[in-house]
């Protein structure tokens, strides 16, 4: 399941959706949150803009890429849009597999690709009320290298 939504989500509800059947032996989840410091700025809130339509198809494509590499029994990708305050949940990736290695790898792969390929943009507001667009991080480009080496 892939969802792009303004609403918050519940960890237990999303977890339960991943336990589809008795073949699931491992569930790995990633949750990204609005944190207080980013690129040297004290963050107080942020707004997430996206490219409606492309976002969903791009996320679906990333999941398909992961499914070619690992045996994924169930997946959930949720990305929130709109205004988010400090400590709010931004993104969730949950993977259910038979074995832990597959679940870890697929979950991290999807996050690494999402960070560099999915059309979302963050505009932060810092503690003095100034708003600015977040710069893309080089470390996110580097994170993709590990998937091409294998």
């Amino acid at each position, binding site marked *: 399941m892939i969802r792009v939504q303004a609403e918050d989500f519940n960890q237990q509800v999303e977890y339960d959706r991943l336990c589809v059947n008795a073949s699931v032996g491992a569930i790995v989840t990633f949750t990204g949150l609005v944190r207080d410091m980013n690129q040297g700025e004290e963050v107080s809130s942020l707004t997430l803009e996206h490219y409606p339509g*492309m976002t969903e198809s791009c996320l679906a494509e990333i999941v398909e890429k992961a499914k070619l590499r690992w045996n994924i029994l169930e997946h959930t990708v949720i990305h929130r849009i709109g205004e988010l305050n400090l400590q709010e949940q*931004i993104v969730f990736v949950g993977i259910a597999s038979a074995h832990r290695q597959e679940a870890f790898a697929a979950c991290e792969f999807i996050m690494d690709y*999402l960070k560099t*390929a999915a059309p979302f943009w*963050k505009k932060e507001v810092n503690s003095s009320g100034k708003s600015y*667009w977040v710069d893309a991080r080089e470390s996110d480009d580097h994170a993709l290298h590990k998937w091409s080496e294998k």
Partner: protein
Amino acid sequence: MIKVLFFAQIRDQLGVSELQMPSEENHDVVTLLENLQARDKHWLSVLSKGKLMVAVNQTMSAQNEKLKEGDEVAFFPPVTGG
């Protein structure tokens, strides 16, 4: 016509989120970009600085991608979601 979209700081700086360009004069992405940059100095500056990403019909594309009537082309800065 070709539908052109701008996102994030590109849109903010241009003050435009969407416009139409004639498909006859914009047969590929690089030509479309040159025609947009030719509007004035400000457009040239905004559409020349930093890394610009392009999507054609909602798929990430290269600058030499061909365009046809009815296509949707989006220009945006590197993504920062997640």
